[in-house]
C-alpha cells in the first residue's frame, strides 16, 4: 500500500496544487488524456487520487486518503469536530476566499452583529417570520451566529447564485464565499462589519483516521521534510 494523496480534479485549484508541489520538487501530472481522471507523481512514493474538492473532506474523514488538498472552509463545514479527524499540515497560500455575511447596502442601520440581531427581532415582529439568511455553509454560519448571540434568524439553503436570493425575496441576507466582493456590489449587497465567519484558503490536510502503518508514516515524514524544505 502506498500513501494516497487526494487533489482537486479540475481547473485552477488543480493547477495551483500541481504548481505548489512542483515548487517543492514534487512533479505531478495527469496521465493519459485530459479527460482521464488519473495522475501520477514523480519523485515520491505517493498515489494521486483526483477528486472533486467538495468530496475530499469526506474521503479524509473516512481515511480512504492519507492526505488531501481542499479549502479550509469545506473541512470546517463538512466534518464535525474536524480537529479530531484531520490535521492542517500546511496552508498553501492560494484559493483565498472569505466566508462572510452580507446584507443589502441600503440597510444603513445594520453595521454590526448587534445590529443584525436587533434588526432580526424587529423584522420578526413586523413580518411574522424569522429573518432569512441564504447559505450553503449551514454549520459554520449557525455556529458563528450562536457564538455571537444572534437570534430570530433562519437559514435557508442556497447552493448557488446566493447573491440573487435577496432580490428574489427568498432571503433577507446571505452568508457566502467572496473573494473580490464584485458580485456582492453588483447585487446591491455589502459585507456586514464583524461578519467575517472564516478566512479560507487551500490547505494540505492529513487524515487522522487513515492507515499510517506499513511505511506510510515514513513516507509522510520524508514528504513533509521536502515540503518544508
Amino acid at each position: 500500500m502506498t500513501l494516497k494523496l487526494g487533489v482537486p480534479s479540475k481547473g485552477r485549484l488543480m493547477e495551483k496544487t500541481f504548481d505548489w508541489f512542483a515548487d517543492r520538487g514534487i512533479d505531478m501530472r495527469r496521465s493519459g488524456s485530459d479527460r482521464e481522471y488519473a495522475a501520477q507523481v514523480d519523485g515520491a512514493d505517493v498515489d494521486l487520487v483526483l477528486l472533486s474538492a467538495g468530496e475530499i473532506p469526506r474521503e479524509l474523514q473516512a481515511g480512504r486518503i492519507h492526505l488531501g488538498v481542499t479549502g479550509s472552509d469545506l473541512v470546517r463545514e463538512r466534518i464535525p469536530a474536524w480537529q479530531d479527524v484531520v490535521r492542517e499540515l500546511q496552508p498553501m497560500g492560494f484559493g483565498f476566499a472569505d466566508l462572510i455575511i452580507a446584507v443589502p447596502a441600503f440597510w444603513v442601520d445594520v453595521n454590526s452583529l448587534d445590529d443584525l440581531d436587533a434588526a432580526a427581532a424587529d423584522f420578526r415582529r413586523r413580518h411574522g417570520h424569522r429573518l432569512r439568511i441564504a447559505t450553503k455553509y449551514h454549520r459554520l454560519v449557525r455556529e458563528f451566529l450562536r457564538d455571537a448571540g444572534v437570534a430570530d434568524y433562519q437559514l435557508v439553503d442556497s447552493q448557488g447564485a446566493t447573491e440573487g436570493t435577496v432580490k428574489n425575496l427568498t432571503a433577507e441576507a446571505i452568508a457566502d464565499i467572496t473573494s473580490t466582493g464584485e458580485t456582492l456590489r453588483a447585487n446591491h449587497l455589502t459585507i456586514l462589519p464583524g461578519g467575517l465567519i472564516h478566512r479560507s484558503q487551500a490547505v494540505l490536510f492529513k487524515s487522522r483516521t487513515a492507515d499510517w502503518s506499513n511505511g506510510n508514516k515514513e513516507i509522510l515524514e520524508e514528504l513533509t521534510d521536502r515540503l518544508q524544505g
Partner: protein
Amino acid sequence: MTDKITVRAEAERLFAFFKASGAMAIDADLLQPADTLLDLYGEDIRARAYVTQDPNRGEMMLRPDFTVPVVQTHMEHGGEPARYTYLGEVFRKQQADSGRATEYLQVGYELFDREDPERADAEVFSLFNEVLSPLGLRPATGDIGILKAAVETLTTTERRKGALMRHIWRPRRFRALLDRFTGRVDMDAARKALLDRVAKDGAEAVVQSGGPEIGLRSREDVLARIAHLQADAAEPPISRSEAEVLDVILSLRETLPNAHQHLRDITVDLPGMAASVDRMARRMDALAAAGITVEDLPFEASFGRTTLEYYDGFVFGFVAEGRPDLPPVATGGRYDALTRVLGRGQEIPAVGGVIRPELVQQLREGLA
C-alpha cells in the same frame, strides 16, 4: 453498559409513580413538524435535533422533547386542571466526542393549573424529589421570574427592557447589552457615524444613498429602526446603582430562605420586584407544606439561564454530586409563555419536568 430492557423497566417504574400520583398517561408522535420547533427554539435546534424530510409534510424532526406536543394536545382537548405523564424516546444530536446518548428515554410530568401556580410548582418539585430521593441527588432551584422582574423594574425604555428580556437566556449577549445601556462601553463608532449623518442629511437621504431597496426588509423597516436608534441615543444610561443591583441578583447563590431575605431587602429600593418576591415566598411556604426542607434548599438566580430556554418562572434540576460527566438526572420548570405562543391567544399556567431513567438506573446500580 446498561441494557435497554433494564432501563425501560426503570422508566416504567417512574411512569407508574406519576400515574399513581394522579396523572393521566399521554403520548406524542415521534415525528414532529419542524416549523413549530424552529420558531420556538430558533435555528440552534437544528444542531441539536435530527431533521428529516417528508415530500408531503415538509421538514420533520425526531421528537427532541415532549413538552411542545403535550402542550399542543392539552390546548386542543384538555380540561383544567390537568396532570399528564409520558414515557418515550427523545432524540438529540451530540458532539462527536461527548459520549452522550443520542437516543434516550424520558419520563415526564406536566401540570396545567390556573388556580395556585406556587402550589403547582411545589407539587411538581416535591414529586420529583420524592421519586428521586433514594439517589441522594443535589437539588438546584432558581426563578427566571425574578430575573424578568429585575429587568422590568429598570428605569429605562420599554425597548431596552425588551432587548434584555429577549436575551435573558443568552448571558453573554445580555451582558453586552447591559454594558451598552449603562454606558460602561461607548456607542460603537459606526452607529455614531450613522447618527451624525442622519442628523446632518436626514434619515431618508442617508437610506437613499445606501442603494436601491431590495428584499422583504423594506425602507420603512430601516427608517423605523433609525428612529429607534435616535431615540435610544437621546436616552440617559441606566444608572450605575440599578445595574449593580441587577449584578447582585444575577450572582445570587444562597439557600432559599437566605436568597428570599436578600431579595426582600432589595425590594426596599426596587418596589417593582415585590410581586415576584412575594411569589417566591408563597412558593417557599408551599414547598414546606409539601414536606420539603426548604432551610437548606439551594437557590441560584441564574439557574436555568443557559439551557432551559422556554422556562420563565420557577426552575429546578437534580444532579448527581461528584459526577460532572453526567447530565442532570432531572430538570423542569414553569413555562407559561410557551403555552401563550402555542395556544394562539389562549394560555394556561403550566409547570413540569422530565427524568432520564437510564441515569436513575445507572446511579441505582452504583448504590446497590
